[in-house]
């Protein structure tokens, strides 16, 4: 079974702080994704990575950056957290053979 873990289930940060959200997978998947989920808006893609050190912007990359130094780990960075980044953040992975995505449990981030 694919296991996707995220560093925190709940996180509270102050405006202006630098925030790191980490995602680790154990299935050797090439593709990793970061989404944010807000009520009524569904999931929106922030960034994705298809290989180590490779990254592509999704639909809403502003205010975020990512890092993928190792295949199993994909980090989302909020350079200077703002209240409008309060959201549920979901990490997902996908192999190259199937279209199915595997999701982590999510991190609910509150920025005050």
């Amino acid at each position, binding site marked *: 079974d694919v296991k*996707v873990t995220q560093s925190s289930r709940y996180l509270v940060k102050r405006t202006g702080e630098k925030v790191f959200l980490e995602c680790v997978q154990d299935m050797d998947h090439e*593709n990793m994704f970061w*989404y944010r989920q807000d009520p*009524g*808006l*569904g*999931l*929106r*893609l922030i960034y*994705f990575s*298809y290989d180590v050190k490779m990254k*592509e912007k*999704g639909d809403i990359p502003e205010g975020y950056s990512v890092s993928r130094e190792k295949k199993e780990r994909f980090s989302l960075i909020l350079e200077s957290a703002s209240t409008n980044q309060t959201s549920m953040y*979901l990490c*997902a992975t996908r192999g190259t053979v*199937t*279209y*199915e*995505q*595997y*999701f*982590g*449990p*999510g991190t*609910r981030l509150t920025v005050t």
Partner: protein
Amino acid sequence: SQQGEEDPQALSIQEGENATMNCSYKTSINNLQWYRQNSGRGLVHLILIRSNEREKHSGRLRVTLDTSKKSSSLLITASRAADTASYFCATAGRLGNFNKFYFGSGTKLNVKP
């Protein structure tokens, strides 16, 4: 945007009844997937239907796809309280060499025991 949109936004039924959720999308797709999300958790893949398929079954799940109408439906038969969750459709488009997925805002299903 290729985003899928689910309908209805919320659905409440009694245990044992069937639940039907619909998804509409805007542009041509490679495939369409359905996911389930229990409250406060990540999404779990349920079923995938390819653009050249019209119907697919998996246990109590039945998915149909009508590419001419750009719509799909998910039917859960003989629902159980454990089916209470939000259900999302996701369409896979193409971004260069990579398949990008668009998720709708979901249907919240409540199955009353």
